[in-house]
Each structure stands twice: as C-alpha cells, then as structure tokens.
C-alpha cells in the first residue's frame, strides 16, 4: 500500500507555500529536528505527528499542543484522529493538508485566458481596433448629423469618446494591476475599442428589425443584444484582469450587466416619467423603400391596438 505522504503547508491565500514529501510518517513543529518545520510562534516545538496505516488511513496525533490541532469545520483533533486526504487542518495559525502520492490531480486547464489576452496584446491589435472604431464611428456620426457635418464636429466628438475609452481602460488597468501586478492598459483599451466597434453593426441590424417590425418582441431582441454585447465586454476584460475560469467568468460578466440593467429598470419604476411609455414606443427610422416595409391593415391594427390598450389600462386603473 502507498505510504508516501505529502504535507502541504498553506499560505495566507490558501495556496501551497511549501511541500514536504515523506515516507510513512512526518513530525510537525517549530523545532529544527522536525520533518516539517513551521515558522509560527503559536505552534509548539514538537506539535504533532502524521502517520499512515497499512490501509492508507491518515492519522494525526497531537503531542500535547498549547493551542490545539483542528480539523475541518474547527473540530479539535484529540490525541489520535483519522483525517481525510486533502482536509485542511490547523495548528497554531498555520494551515496545512496531507496528500498521498496516489491522490489524483485536476485536469490540465485550457489556457484560453492566455489566448484572449494574447489576442488583445498583439502588437498591431490596438492600432487596428482604433482604426476600425474611427472608421465606423465616422460613418455613424455622419449619418446621425442633421446639421452641416464638419471635421471640427467629428473631432470634438471623437476627442470626448477617446477620453471616455481611456478612462474606462484605465479603470480596468488599475483593477488588473491590483489583482496581478501588471496593468495591461493597451489590452484593455483594445478590448473596449473592439467591442464597441462590433456593437455598431449589431445595433444597425437590431434597429432595422425594430423598424420593420416595431413591437415588444423586437424590443426584447434589442435589449438581449445589448446585454450580450455588454457581457462580452466585461467577460473579455475579466479574462485579462483575472484568472477566473471561463464558465464562472461568463456568469459573473452577465450578472454584472444584468444587475446594471435591473438597476436602470428599477430607477425607472421608482420614479416613472409620465411620458416614458410614449417615449419608448417611438422607435428608430431607417431609409427602407415603402414596398419592403411589412404592414398590418388599418382596421386590424386599430382593433388589436384598442383591445390591448383597453385591457392594459383596465389593469393600470385597478392597481
């Protein structure tokens, strides 16, 4: 039977600070004659002994410590206690665990985070994202301008936007710096530019949908695409800023965006503007030839609309 044990002394954050590999048993304490020497003033010179039996059971024996030896859940271990593989134990203020050489390790992680980060950190990524953004933004800005379109107007707008991008990327860089020591400002700036650039054609497509089929369904599609884009943005930033695994990162990103949307919605519900429902019903317009625009018959539309309104208003009056 396997009698090789590995004692892992854990650091503050739960990561392994050092490992000792031993055959059969290990003595743990502050004194230098121990197998595992612990630098902790709350640990006795000779604190405990770990041993394995024939069947692989791990036994911890307290040698009469001043402050006690504790198992999972703060259970105090008596003179001789059986503990499980990987249980986090504590003596003094030091946490440790015991593994066997046969203990399986988790599967190797896919370094997808590295790739995402790499995509944004390639030498040309930032200039390409910036150029794409500038090009699309200029077109959008031109189509949205109903007065004379001048370079001065465009430059003023762009200056404001670039400052906003810099603040946004700077905030993420600060967070990244605190979490991992490197700021990665260039990557964050690239990510923000790339996602906002991608959002512009998506917005055009969703507004085309709401133009052709104005209604609650297309509203939902627009909202969903907005949430999707927002989540992608946060997901990508988080990938560069942290080592949160992919799935959890997706959940975190979506939850952040959803809660922002929720807060916005609640703010609208708490202090509703009387014209808010009217405002939100007035949608976008696009240059589509009349023959391509699907329409309902006048009577059909008016019948449906007045029925819907009647029952809606009945509910509102009742509440």
């Amino acid at each position, binding site marked *: 039977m396997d009698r090789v044990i590995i004692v892992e002394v854990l650091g503050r954050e739960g990561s392994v600070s050092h490992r000792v590999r031993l055959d059969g048993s290990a003595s743990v304490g502050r004194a230098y004659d121990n197998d595992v020497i612990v630098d902790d003033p709350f640990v006795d010179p000779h604190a405990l002994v770990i041993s394995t039996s024939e069947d692989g059971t791990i036994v911890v024996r307290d040698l009469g410590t001043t402050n006690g030896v504790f198992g999972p859940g703060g259970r105090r271990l008596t003179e001789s206690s059986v503990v499980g593989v990987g249980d986090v134990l504590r003596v003094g203020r030091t946490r440790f665990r015991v593994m066997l050489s046969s203990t399986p390790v988790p599967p190797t992680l896919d370094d997808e985070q590295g790739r995402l980060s790499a995509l944004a950190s390639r030498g040309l990524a930032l200039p390409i994202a910036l150029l794409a953004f500038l090009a699309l933004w200029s077109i959008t800005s031109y189509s949205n301008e109903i007065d*004379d379109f001048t370079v001065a107007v465009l430059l003023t707008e762009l200056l404001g936007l670039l400052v906003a991008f810099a603040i946004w990327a700077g905030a993420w860089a600060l967070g990244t710096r605190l979490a991992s020591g490197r700021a990665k400002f260039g990557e964050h700036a690239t990510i923000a530019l790339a996602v906002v650039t991608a959002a512009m054609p998506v917005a055009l497509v969703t507004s085309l949908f709401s133009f052709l089929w104005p209604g609650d369904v297309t509203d939902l599609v627009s909202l969903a695409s907005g949430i999707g884009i927002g989540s992608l943005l946060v997901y990508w930033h988080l990938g560069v800023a942290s080592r949160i695994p992919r799935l959890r990162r997706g959940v975190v990103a979506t939850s952040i965006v959803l809660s922002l949307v929720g807060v916005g919605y609640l703010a609208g519900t708490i202090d509703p503007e*009387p014209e808010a429902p009217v405002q939100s019903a007035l949608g976008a317009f696009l240059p589509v030839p009349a023959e391509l625009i699907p329409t309902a018959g006048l009577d059909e539309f008016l019948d449906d609309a007045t029925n819907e309104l009647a029952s809606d208003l009945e509910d509102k009056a009742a509440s």
Partner: protein
Amino acid sequence: MEGRRVATLALTVLTAAARLPSPVAAQLGEAEAIFSRHSSSVGKVEVFEAGAGAPAIVGTAFFVADGLMATNYHVVNDAVYDPSRFSANVLMSDGSRHDIAVVAVAAPVDLALLSVGVNRPALTLADAEPERGAPLYSLGHPADLAQSVVVGTFNGPVQHRASPLFHFTGSLNPGMSGGPTMTANGSVVGVNVSTAGNQLSFLIPAERVSALLREHGAGTGVARTLLEQVEEQFVRLHDEFVGTLVSDGLPSTRLGDFEVPTGLDRYLDCSATRIDDEDDLYEALRHQCEMSDYVFTTQHESLELLSFTHFVIDSDELSPFRFQTLYEQFFQNLDGWLPGSTDDTTDYSCERGNVDGGAAKLRVVLCARKNTKLPSLHDVFVRSAVLGGARSGVVSTLRISGSPLTKARELIAEYLQGFRWIE
C-alpha cells in the same frame, strides 16, 4: 401715495367719459342702472379647501330660479371631484354668506347649477340672440374685487367649437367666471366663461342654462352622481361630434408632397406655417388644426377636445440616412405634446406598428391613458409618420381628450386614411 394714484386714474376715466359721444355715454349710464337693479341677484362663489383660511377659487354665480344659481363648472369642479376636501359658499352683495351645493352640471359646456338656502330675484334668461353690436353688461367679481359691471358688445357665435360660445367685447377677467352678461333690459344673453385677452371674451349662450334647468327640473340625472353625469355628457359629446366628423369625412389638404387630413371649418381652427431656418438643411411646413373647446375631465387639468398637427419635412441636401435621423427626431419629439401627470388618470399605455393606411404606409404609435374617476373616458395621443420617403415625409400628432376608446378609434381610422403622396 397709493390713494392719490387711484384718484387720478378715476379722474382720467371720468374726464374721458365726459368727452365720449352720446351713445357710449348712454351705455355707461345703462351700466349704472343694470348694476343697481341686478347686483343683488349676483354673488361671489368661494371654494375652500378643508383647513385653508382663504378660498382656493373665486368665481361668480347668479340666480336663475328659486334657490338655484348658475355658474361655470370649472369654478366648482374641485367640489364635484373631491367633496370631502372642498366646500363652497356664496357671498351676496348684502354681505350675507350661504352654503351652496352643486346639484347639476353640464361639464362639456362648462355650466353648473348650485342650490342655495336663500332666495333673490332670478334673472331672466334670453331666448333669442341679440343683434350684433348690441350693448351688453357683464356682472362679476374680477380678480376677487368687489362686484363690478363691465360694458361691451355682442358679436355672435364663435366658430371652431363643439359647444357654441358667444363673442363679447367686454373685458372679462378671472373671478368673473360664472357671472351673467345681459342686455340693457336685463335679460341674460350668456354666462361669462373665458377670455382670450384684449376685449376678446366668451359667453356660454343662455339657452344652455335654460336647457340645464329643464333637465334638472325634469329630474334627469337625479339617480346618478355628478361625476357619472359628467362622464355621460362627454360620452354623448364625442358620440355626436365624432359621428359628424366621420360621417362627413375629414377633408384633406395639400401640404408639400402630401395630402393630409385637415378640419371642417365649423369645428376646427386650422393654420399653416413654413418653418424655414437658413442654417437648417431641410424645410418644414406645419399645419395645425384645433378645437377651441377645453374639457375638464380631471380635477386640475383642462385639455383641448381635439387637435392635430402635421409637419411635412423635406430636404435636398441630406442623404437618405441623415434624412431618416432628422425624421426620427421629429417623430420622437414630445416637447409640449403630452399633458403632465395627474392623480385622476393612469399613465400612458402605447401600441405601435407599421400600418397600411390605404393611400400610404405609416408608422403609427397609439397611446392612451384612462381617466380613473370617469372610467369610460380616455385621453388619446397618436403619433404617425408616412414611411418610405427617401428625403421627405410627414410626421403628425393627433390628440383627443375625454373620449371613449371606441369613438377615438373611429376618428383615428378616418384620420389615418387621409395621408397620401402626391405624385
């Protein structure tokens, strides 16, 4: 100082009177007689909010029958909507004060009947219109001052209205609402109701007071609350006038590249203007029609019964994409279009769609709010835009107040069919 100024002013008027040609002087002489003969039949109505020491609203009322006075609905509508919070009384010219109760209303014409626990001689209601230019004398309490008499002339009925009004050239001021305007022989031609400033004042025809008195005498509406009466009156009003508008058909008029619905002269006052700013890359024409009737279907708000506005917009300079941005801004602009929020209505609900109006495809947004005290009445807002124009279009707004949804629907259908491209 103050006293001297008043004295000087009085002197100016007196001097002026002395120099006036004799018919005017005669009219002013009549005023004196009218005032001394009839002022005892006229009182000042004061509406108090519970706990308040001063009146919230001041108006005028006059005796039309035994123990019954007439005034404007808008003077006493607080007491109709919220009788637990508002009470009203009347102060007669002899200084006596009496409680009053609203016993009947004609809300669309802005009249109310009050019962008073005292009697004064009832004024005679004229059964025919006087000649145009006939001198008239109006009694009331302008700006909460002592009872005054105002002189003017009769100028016949006003157009563009669902409920008729007479034009009177005397200066009516707030506080005179509900007071009588009479001929030299003391028969009441109309009830003071509103003013558009500068001797442009309006009277409710006395014949409407007689009608309300007859209804009240016949016991019509006795079984119903006042609010139920108000609701039913507006339903009837919309029945009648939407019926007429729809059966006659809304006429249309040319505006830029479009034909758009316009109004019948009898009911609607229409005007058109060009909005042309040199800096703009577009031209716009505005065509507006409205009824001058105001409806009081909530306690604090009065709205036009019906109005609509078209903006025809076109541009040679904007690209189709930029034109649509402009068009969208016109379509989405709500500044000054929606009445504010009120306790007596729900907020708006809206339905929208692309609709085939028959002669043009339209984006239509149809919004309505429901009156919670008068539950069959709605305020309706319709925003529409003709679709498919690369560089021109028409954005329109239709507002209907105090209407059943079904009646509004009929009118909207008629209206939306009136949009057409001119080839």
